[in-house]
């Protein structure tokens, strides 16, 4: 199984590090411990990444995400081929500008996937991270490795965050490719009406992708925490995604406006403010702060739970 292989690669890393002493350390034993500790963390992270991205499930999720911008692009192309304009009946933000400039497909696709698709995939990965091992009976073998539970948890969280970035980039890259094929590219008109060059438009698109990935940091921590609560991977995934949907519903009820600012998803669409001129940073900063707070709260809750948990399977 991939898990056995992963722990194996971790062990390889350790032996190789022990075999190459660095410099002239005054206390070789202490430095060796430190180095091996670092190697352990890195090795664990690498093995986590490999297990995550080698799964068919992960690849299928990424394929679905890649299909969304392609579908949106084709739909807009068909709708506007007769000379009409897209998105007159609503739809995600930026959809109407896609016909002007293919670059806007990046923003439209991210705006379309951010509310549900992207966090859902993150919920599957993060929710399964600990509970899935527990259900498959591989968790206790992982804990035999003298890396410590905290490092294991950190490695799992880092792998989930890497998935957030990878998923966002998959959407952005496929959107850019589809947009370049189907629509004209050129100078970009910001939503404030000013014109910027295509190069700086691309830079903004990259910034937007990073911001979208950062928007998922808090939710990934929640998924990790839920994952430490249960021994069933399916239950953890369902609970995480269910929480996401509940929060999205609460965020859309105007009568509950008092709590909206505290929901992790409230400032998600703030990435659109990057396309204003001058850029309006207020909500972007609020989003990043709220993600950091959620990551700290639920990360430490996951630590509190996982480090004191009785692992029997």
């Amino acid at each position, binding site marked *: 199984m991939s898990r056995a292989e992963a722990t194996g690669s971790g062990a390889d890393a350790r032996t190789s590090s022990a075999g190459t002493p660095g410099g002239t350390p005054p206390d070789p034993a202490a430095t060796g411990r430190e180095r091996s500790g670092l190697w352990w963390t890195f090795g664990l992270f690498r093995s986590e990444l490999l297990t995550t991205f080698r799964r068919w499930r992960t690849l299928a999720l990424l394929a679905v995400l890649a299909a969304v911008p392609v579908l949106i692009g084709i739909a807009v192309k068909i709708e506007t081929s007769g000379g009409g304009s897209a998105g007159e009946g609503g739809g995600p933000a930026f959809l109407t500008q896609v016909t002007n400039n293919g670059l806007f497909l990046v923003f439209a696709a991210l705006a379309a996937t951010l509310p549900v698709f992207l966090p859902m995939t993150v919920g599957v990965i993060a929710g399964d991270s600990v509970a899935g091992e527990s259900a498959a009976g591989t968790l206790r073998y992982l804990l035999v490795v003298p890396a410590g539970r905290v490092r294991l948890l950190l490695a799992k969280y880092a792998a989930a965050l890497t998935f957030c970035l990878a998923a966002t980039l998959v959407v952005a890259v496929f959107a850019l490719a589809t947009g370049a094929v189907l629509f004209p590219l050129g100078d970009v008109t910001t939503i404030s*009406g000013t014109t910027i060059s295509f190069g700086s438009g691309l830079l903004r698109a990259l910034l937007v992708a990073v911001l979208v990935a950062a928007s998922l940091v808090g939710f990934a921590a929640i998924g990790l925490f839920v994952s430490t609560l249960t021994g069933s991977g399916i239950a953890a995934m369902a609970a995480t995604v269910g929480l996401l949907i509940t929060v999205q519903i609460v965020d859309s009820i105007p009568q509950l406006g008092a709590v909206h600012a505290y929901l992790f998803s409230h400032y998600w669409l703030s990435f659109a403010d990057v396309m204003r001129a001058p850029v309006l940073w207020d909500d972007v900063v609020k989003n990043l702060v709220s993600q950091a707070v959620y990551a700290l709260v639920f990360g430490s*809750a996951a*630590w509190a739970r996982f480090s004191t948990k009785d692992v029997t399977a």
Partner: protein
Amino acid sequence: MAGNDRAEATEEVVSRVTRRRKAARYAVPVAVAGVAAATVGLVPALAASGDPNLPKISAHDLVQKIAASDTQQLSGSVKITTDLGLPSLAGLGGSMAQSMAPGGAGGHSDAASGSSADPGSKLMELASGTHTLRVAVDGPKKQKISIVENAAEYSLIRNGRQVWAYDSASNQAYHSTAPQGSDTKARPTLPKGTDVPTTPKQFADEVLKAAGPTTSLTVDGTSRIAGRDAYDLLAKPKQSGSTVGSVRIAVDAKTGTPLKFTLAPSGGGKPVLDIGYTKVDFAKPAASTFDFTPPKGTKVTEGKQHAEQHATKPSRQEQQGRSQAEAALSNAKVIGKGWTSVLRLDGPAGAVDKGAKGDTSKMPGNAQSFVNSLGDKVSGKFGSGTVFHTRLINALMTDKGTVYVGAVSKQTLIDTANAAAK
């Protein structure tokens, strides 16, 4: 690895220790959440505390300061909150327009009125709720105002004689060319008196003289608006019976630019209108701010053509409405003085009656019941009528077709109508 070395301890001790350790660890996320919540609660309170200490200034000098202010360039964000005490006007306006539009949306041939970039259709949205605007001004010829929306923006850009409106949500633009003379128009922040008062001191004198008998004008402390020290100019009606409680204008201590305007109703509660900068910068905005080229694929509506179309071929409805409005205005009369003045519109009884009936019959049922539910039936020497009440403006429409409108309380309005009917 935890727990292995405690094999010899009794089970009881182990469970007690782990329980305590668990509780201690769970305190960490709770503490983080608590600190975050406390920060959210405390930071605005700390930031708001402490009005700036500024040298004392008289109301006369402050008005003079406003008039003397020579702010040609600024950019910033403005927050506008309107609470007229009406249900959401934007929604109502939309539904009314939809149901009352002749021929429905599909059969409507006039492209201009269908454009969401038409400035007129956007202004309705500002009449209720809270909105964020971004403003940039560079001299009298370049101005830009944007309404910040979710992942979209509506911009009104003026660059010389070119006036553009761009609605990014629907990807539509509106263009018109201002007439030649309008280049010399004063900047929008403060219409500079080009006519009578020529110096700021004269202007201040004029304002105070005009305000004298009806208004008390005072400097009411200082405040901090958008990170700048400001004096608060407070205007209060001396007369009773007005629905306006006070008007407060925060004036930048350095430049004399008004930064915040608050209109409070006499009935108390939230301000009816609150408009002020949340960020302001007196540096020259980037020239590119005022450049607008409609992107390829954007639907552009020409405003000029729109106006000509109307001038040459006004619809029958419009003609009727215009003549009615003209007739009503010719009979308009202002009763009273100052804050309690009431506008009286004497419609030619027959026409207004017919017009009103015609209008209401055309209104959809829900709109009519909505209008009725807003009004209170009253009677007096003027006969009987209906009072329409908002937090700022009250209107009395008698059954004879006379309309009294004013920013006065309901009782004052009825008293005025009684006095006028004698």
